[in-house]
């Protein structure tokens, strides 16, 4: 059919052009030799001048990793990864640890400018005062710049690369690292524990409301390089922080591995809001290239009345394997998960959340919106469980899937487990298709089919978009439109 062919051609043409972050920055980099063994782990640790305890922690993780098998239960398919054919460490050569932004390679600053992330504080200050965001920028394996540190320090907030926190705040790192995602948690988390190179560290002292949004931008630049970042956020009693991460990578023919670990700890009455706009390169229309995104994110509501909220907008990656979860340990603690996952082309998404109710009167809420277009597959996988002591646990789950076109798939796999008779779990799910009638109605008013699709999709995801910080909601809305270009047939 001519119409089908035309659509396929358009998707092909657009998919590649639409990924506007697909440039490569020409920066000399220093890499560890290819492959993984104990020497590489020591090499990474030495690069960071790490103390002995940290090196041992990594080696322990590495040895355990050797005994583990790659998980295969997700609804994703990909050729077996040769973990010996990857670089585990890459750093821009000029980076011997900048003291200030003036020492940062101008080429790197230009890269972040291209991404629309201003790293120069004065530029941000000169702009809109209200939209001030402190940024930590991670390029391949190292953090290149963290902004607004002085101002944050006044409030007692620590926001720095984790490699630095190991030196400056070893007591905090020792106490919390691996306390939410244990070293042996799963194959990719264990690998991350062995080779993680950088990421962000955040500590909010008791009673402090973090004066600005914190944000980390991750960029994979080098070829054949895995990125293994590690983020650790601790909100002490009665504090509040809102944190956003953004991710992009160049367009490459081969797949790149991204295996991050994020750990959140919320003490009594503390609240952490963690938002992600994930836009890794999704691969081309045939499914060539793109990022394998195997990420472990978990939050621990350790104190009573603590709250952790995950919001994610997932549009990129060839494969997504990601389940941001909450352990509701404190009594009356609350976990939230708001997700928009869009897949197009040949993308495969297997994502969802876990809400583990341990404390009394804990509540959780899951709103998941999956949108599949092209020939993609989109799976929601979620687990809600109540421990036998979790009296009065409550969960509400709403999973909606929207299909665009005829060749994509949407799947919902909820696991619900209750060991306490007083727990109340509700689950709602819908699957719908954008109807020809809706599209015709919109085009009859003068909208193009693509504008119409974007409008309908934005309506579909509205509940979740509202959860994002203002500045990023607009960005996310645009991103959704770009991801769906060429998806109408």
């Amino acid at each position, binding site marked *: 059919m001519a119409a089908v062919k035309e659509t396929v051609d358009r998707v092909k043409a657009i998919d590649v052009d639409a990924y506007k972050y697909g440039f490569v920055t020409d920066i000399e980099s220093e890499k560890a030799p290819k492959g993984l063994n104990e020497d590489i782990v020591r090499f990474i640790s030495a690069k960071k001048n790490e103390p002995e305890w940290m090196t041992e922690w990594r080696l322990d993780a590495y040895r355990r990793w050797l005994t583990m098998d790659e998980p295969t239960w997700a609804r994703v398919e990909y050729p077996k990864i040769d973990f010996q054919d990857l670089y585990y460490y890459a750093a821009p050569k000029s980076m011997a640890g900048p003291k200030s932004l003036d020492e940062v390679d101008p080429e790197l600053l230009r890269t972040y400018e291209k991404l629309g992330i201003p790293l120069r504080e004065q530029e941000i200050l000169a702009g809109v005062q209200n939209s001030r965001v402190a940024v930590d920028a991670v390029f391949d394996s190292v953090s290149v710049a963290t902004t607004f540190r002085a101002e944050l320090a006044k409030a007692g907030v620590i926001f720095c690369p984790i490699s630095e926190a190991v030196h400056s705040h070893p007591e905090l790192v020792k106490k919390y690292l691996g306390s939410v995602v244990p070293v042996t948690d799963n194959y990719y988390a264990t690998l991350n524990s062995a080779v993680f190179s950088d990421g962000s560290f955040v500590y909010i002292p008791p009673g402090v409301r973090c004066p600005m949004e914190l944000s980390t931008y991750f960029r994979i630049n080098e070829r054949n390089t895995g990125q293994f970042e590690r983020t650790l956020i601790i909100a002490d009693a009665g504090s509040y922080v809102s944190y956003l991460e953004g991710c992009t990578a160049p367009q490459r023919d081969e797949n790149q591995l991204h295996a991050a670990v994020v750990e959140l700890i919320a003490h009594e009455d503390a609240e952490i809001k963690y938002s992600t706009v994930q836009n890794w390169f999704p691969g081309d229309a045939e499914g060539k290239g793109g990022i394998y995104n195997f990420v472990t994110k978990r939050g621990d509501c350790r104190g009573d009345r603590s709250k952790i909220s995950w919001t994610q907008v997932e549009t990129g990656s060839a494969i997504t394997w990601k389940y941001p979860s909450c352990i509701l340990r404190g009594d009356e603690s609350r976990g939230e998960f708001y997700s928009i996952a869009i897949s197009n082309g040949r993308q495969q998404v297997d994502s969802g959340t876990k809400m583990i109710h341990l404390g009394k009167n804990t509540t959780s809420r899951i709103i998941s919106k999956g949108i599949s277009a092209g020939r993609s597959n989109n799976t929601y996988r979620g687990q809600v469980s109540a421990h036998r002591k979790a009296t009065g646990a409550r969960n509400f789950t709403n999973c909606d899937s929207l299909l665009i076109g005829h060749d994509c798939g949407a799947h919902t796999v909820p696991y619900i487990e209750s060991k306490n008779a007083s727990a109340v779990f509700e689950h709602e799910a819908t699957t719908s298709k954008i109807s020809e009638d809706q599209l015709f*109605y919109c*085009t009859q008013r003068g909208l193009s089919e693509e504008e119409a699709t974007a409008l309908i999709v934005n*309506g579909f995801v509205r509940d979740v978009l509202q959860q994002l910080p203002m500045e990023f909601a607009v960005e996310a809305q645009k991103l959704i439109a770009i991801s769906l270009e060429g998806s109408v047939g």
Partner: protein
Amino acid sequence: MLEVKNLHVSVGGRKILDGLNLTVKDGEVAAIMGPNGTGKSTLSYVIAGREDYEVEEGEVLLDGVNILEMDATERANAGVFLAFQYPLEIPGVATMTFLKAALNAQARAKGQGELQTPEFMKKVREAAQKLGVAQDMLKRPLNVGFSGGEKKRMEILQMALLQPKIGILDETDSGLDIDALRIVADGVNALRAQDRSFLVITHYQRLLDYIKPDTVHVMARGKIARTGGPELALELEKSGYAAFTGEAA
């Protein structure tokens, strides 16, 4: 001016329009009446550019340009507006957002700048007030949970904002009580203008008591069976369509 010339249309191999000819002059209000299943809605969809209809032969000219070569978006931007018999619901999209998207799309197509928000809001509020559309309805998702009458009023509101060259009303009277009918008709009458024409598709004379047509066409078996003035509608009210279906059969 809208000219339909020798239009042959089929759906899934079944012939619906069979050599239909029709002219609606600028400023004219033409009514199309006829029994169920005679192709009235098909005609409106084919003019507006809905896919899945196979145009085998013929032309549809808007001011001399054959719009059959355009897609639905281009036709809308050229000034074709269809008030749907069953307006679609767009969940999660506020009515105001939808109106703005449509208005801006058409402004862009005409090479005009997009409307500034305050100017746009003012325009919508004024038009809404005239049609008795409550302000809070503009904040609700488009057509979701609207009553039949509210949906039809929303169609006319969109038409008032988009200012088309030709407005096609597909059974706009269906499901309306007499008060709602009057409001909708007043809305249409307020839009009557020298350079705008209307094609009013209806079963019943009732709507034509409020929107007075210049011409009445009777459609049967895929073509125009008879054309006359407003008195033709009254005649049909008495005698029904039997003569036409019989005549055509």
